[in-house]
């Protein structure tokens, strides 16, 4: 089974939202785009009770719920065997779900199957309200039969979802904030479930241990150190009570439960030392938990059961070396996974069509697949490069508040190279009204496809800006973009006749003698002037080594550093539509033009 879509109303920061899911979606997005809200909403509908956190006013959109306000989450469950309700009669029968048909192309649910491609589905709903008398949140989980406005609290009670079906779905959530101490222990719910699912209870060993603890070979109370004290206690006791029992000291409560709870995992190194898990580094500790989840998934898969797993920010739990392998193992063993991530690296491991870019504007949550449909064989080379080879860069840019599509790859590289050492410079960020590195993500445009790239990105990001050259071709691009049906949020261009290399020249002119002196290594001959550097950069595009020495020289030359900060912050202002900078000024057509 699979969750095909989720509808959210009034939950946390989301006033309304609708997201469709494939088998193994990877959800990416800037902070506060609703990744956690989405996962918590899934948990409300699918999670076992102990997984669901108790809700408070803050879980309602706006944090001030009125009596008639409801949190409402509805999930469509699909992928039932052969789309035949009779084969899944534990789901489709009286007091359970009614039969409905899902059109996956739109996410709409229909009462009658008018199209053979529509899939059998049922809808599970959760609603919650805040009670002003008891100051508590009341929650119901029910089979969502129809979209008519029926209130489960004030009108007739809907059919509740039995815990048995929730167990059958076996939804598991690993929260980003999860701590993994005491994972391999019967005190841990996950461990208990895994052992149970795998039918791996070591009863023989546990009972033997219990018996050994009941009748120890070397009782503590018989130790010569403590024995006299115990003997005194016993004789005092005998004087107070007829037939008084005798004091004995035993490890644990000597029943199997206390034995199980006392178990603690140790890790034995190659050196032979065995060290308890709690004293290991956090990487290994969190790894244990994920390994256990894999085992649970394996046991569920072996018994033909479902295993749905939401993994929040695996990069928090895992060292980079383990991320890819573990995420892929989790996906292979689960019926469906939901991975949220801040890491473009983790996102780039997934199939680009499975990566969902979350967007939230004015409380409306939506998600767009990074790539709509798999690229056809005939897809142009630049597109292939953009979505495959460069996808870490593209995904990382998508997570920023504004996205900048430059005219060419050289702009991307230069901006990035200059930015990186600058950001290391202490106090640098304070000098900018708008920190470029935090506010703007730059994508590596291929083959000057600024117009096409803009269109591709517009679907995924609300604030797409374009940066073009000041030459004839650049002006032409700017005109085309301006006349586009959905023009960019901002069109930015270099001054007349200029391109990014000229802007670099302007930065270098902040302290020409010093900075040019630091660039002796650039090119076969040491450049004598800014003009020579600019000429070299224009002649040898994408000379990454040259870019890096340039960046280093700028970062270490205060005069240039100030200009670089000025330029980048101006660029960030233009992207945000902020007129406080004078470095970029809008012309008659609204195009932001660089003012050196």
């Amino acid at each position: 089974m699979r969750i095909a879509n989720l509808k959210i109303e009034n939950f946390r920061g989301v006033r309304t939202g609708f997201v469709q899911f494939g088998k193994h979606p990877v959800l990416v997005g800037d902070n506060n785009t609703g990744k956690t809200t989405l996962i918590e909403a899934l948990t409300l509908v699918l999670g076992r009770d102990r997984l669901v956190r108790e809700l408070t006013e803050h879980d309602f959109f706006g944090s001030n719920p009125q009596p008639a306000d409801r949190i409402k989450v509805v999930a469509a469950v699909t992928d039932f065997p052969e789309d035949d309700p009779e084969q899944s009669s534990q789901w489709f029968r009286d007091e359970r779900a009614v039969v409905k048909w899902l059109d996956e192309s739109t996410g709409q649910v229909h009462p009658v199957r008018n199209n053979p491609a529509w899939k059998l589905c049922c809808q599970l709903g959760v609603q919650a309200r805040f009670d002003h008398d008891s100051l508590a949140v009341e929650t119901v989980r029910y089979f969502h039969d129809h979209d008519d406005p029926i209130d489960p609290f004030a009108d007739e009670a809907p059919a509740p979802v039995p815990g048995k079906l929730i167990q059958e779905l076996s939804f598991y959530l690993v929260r980003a904030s999860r701590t993994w101490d005491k994972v391999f222990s019967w005190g841990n719910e996950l461990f208990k479930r895994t052992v149970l699912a795998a039918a791996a209870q070591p009863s023989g060993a546990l009972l033997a241990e219990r018996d050994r603890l009941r009748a120890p070979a070397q009782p503590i109370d018989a130790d010569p150190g403590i024995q006299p004290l115990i003997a005194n206690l016993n004789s005092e006791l005998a004087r107070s009570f007829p037939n008084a029992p005798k004091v004995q000291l035993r490890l644990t409560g000597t029943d199997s439960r206390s034995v199980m709870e006392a178990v603690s995992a140790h890790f034995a190194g190659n050196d032979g030392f065995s060290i308890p898990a709690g004293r290991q580094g956090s990487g290994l500790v969190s790894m244990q938990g994920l390994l256990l989840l894999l085992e649970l998934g394996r046991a569920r898969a072996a018994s033909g059961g479902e295993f749905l797993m939401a993994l929040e920010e695996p990069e928090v739990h895992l060292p980079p070396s383990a991320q890819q392998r573990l995420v892929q193992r989790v996906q292979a063993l689960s019926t469906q996974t939901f991975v949220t991530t801040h890491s473009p690296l983790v996102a780039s491991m997934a199939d680009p069509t499975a990566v969902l870019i979350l967007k939230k504007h004015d409380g409306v949550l939506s998600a767009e697949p990074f790539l709509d449909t798999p690229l056809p064989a005939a897809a142009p080379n630049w597109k292939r490069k953009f979505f495959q080879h460069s996808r870490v860069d593209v995904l990382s840019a998508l997570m920023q508040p504004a996205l900048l599509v430059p005219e060419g790859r050289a702009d991307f590289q230069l901006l990035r190279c200059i930015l990186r050492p600058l950001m290391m410079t202490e106090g640098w960020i304070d000098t900018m009204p708008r920190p470029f590195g935090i506010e703007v993500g730059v994508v590596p445009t291929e083959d000057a496809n600024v117009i096409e790239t803009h269109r591709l990105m517009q679907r995924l990001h609300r604030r797409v800006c374009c940066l073009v050259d000041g030459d004839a071709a650049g002006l032409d691009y700017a005109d085309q973009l301006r006349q586009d049906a959905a023009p960019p949020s901002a069109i930015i261009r270099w001054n007349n006749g200029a391109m990014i290399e000229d802007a670099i020249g302007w930065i270098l002119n902040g302290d020409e003698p010093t900075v040019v002196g630091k660039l002796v290594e650039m090119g076969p001959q040491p450049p004598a002037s800014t003009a020579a550097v600019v000429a070299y950069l224009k002649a040898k595009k994408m000379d990454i080594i040259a870019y890096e020495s340039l960046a280093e020289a700028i970062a270490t030359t205060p005069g240039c550093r100030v200009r670089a900060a000025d330029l980048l912050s101006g660029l960030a202002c233009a992207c945000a539509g902020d007129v406080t900078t004078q470095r970029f000024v809008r012309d008659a057509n609204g195009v932001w033009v660089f003012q050196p």
Partner: protein
Amino acid sequence: MTVRAFTGGAGCGKTHMLMDSLSAYLDAEPLHTGQKVLALTFMHGSRRRLEERLGMLQNLRGKTECTTIDSFAWRLVRRWRSLAAALGFANIGPTEYERVCEAAGALAQVKEVHNWVAATFPILVVDEAQDMTVNRLSMVAGLANKLEIFIAADEFQCLSEELRPNPACAWLTQVCAPEELTQPRRTNVDELLNAARAIRAGEAPKSAKFFMVAQTSTAPLAGAWINSNLNWYGGGKRVAIITPTHGTFSRAALAWAAANKTKKGAGPYNVAWEQSEAKAATEYLATIQLADQADGISIAAILAAAGDARTARDVIEWLETQRRTRAKVQFTRDEVVKLVEHSFSQRRQSRRSDVRGWKGMTVHGAKNREFDNVIVLWPAAVGGSDDQKRRLLYNAVTRAKERCIVLVQAAAHMSRPPFT
């Protein structure tokens, strides 16, 4: 799927046979986990009796759900609301009984729906099937596509003149060969058996000792008959005073019986009348003064003062829920009236089927029940065709196990059907 039907006169053991054949079927085909037998009846009284009968089946161990046809129909419509709307039945409320049943009838024809019902209820038991209207029959017939059906009906016990010819009985002869039961089991009093047979056959029932027809022109006379009958034969017995229409005659007769002694000292006896819940609700509403629009607190105060604790509690609870979940504090009279009516009808559903003691009721209210001793009050105002009158009398007389007396108000009636 198979339909097994049992027909036959009152007291011939149709329900008994229903249980026997269901039990035999369950022996061969036990229910799976989570499955139950669905039993549908018309009135809540018969629902409880059927529930008790099913509860006695060893191989069922309580895995039954007894409900009225109408509430099951609403259940289908409520759950399958979006499909019902697609079939042309949108915006139906739970109290629009005929539309609910019509929509449920349409839904039950849909494969997904009858399979959905069958997944929980592979077996359907219907008693008193002759009372099913076309729409209710349509629901049962739709379910019969997938469910095993055990059904009992007696065309002659149908009191609704609109159901002639009887749709359910016609359907049964189409889908199966109903087993006709002819051996009466409720009583072995020959006089009662003969009277019932005669009424059914359109002949004159013979007045004798255990079955007696007496002419009582005035209410005091009828009252005196009631008291002496109760005095002689009512001790420790279940007695029903049954009338086709509870009008002036029956009220006056009961009032006399409650206030007077006969010359021989029988009485006074106060026999409680079983009131329809709708009527009880109307009477209750007449005692309270509701404003067109009022706030919850003043409505609660009015109801608390009105004296019916249960209705007051039901309504106040609802008002509270509305305040807490919708911040609604103003209510119209209509809303409160609806709630009071609902509260009374809920009461009918949960009331226990106590058959001890003496009771007064209409023929409709007596359906499907049995009593040791039956006193029929036959007022001059009984309407309908001769056939209808025979059915009314048949339904009243066949409730008796030991004796039955019919008190006829109009002398002229003595020489007309159903008495000739």
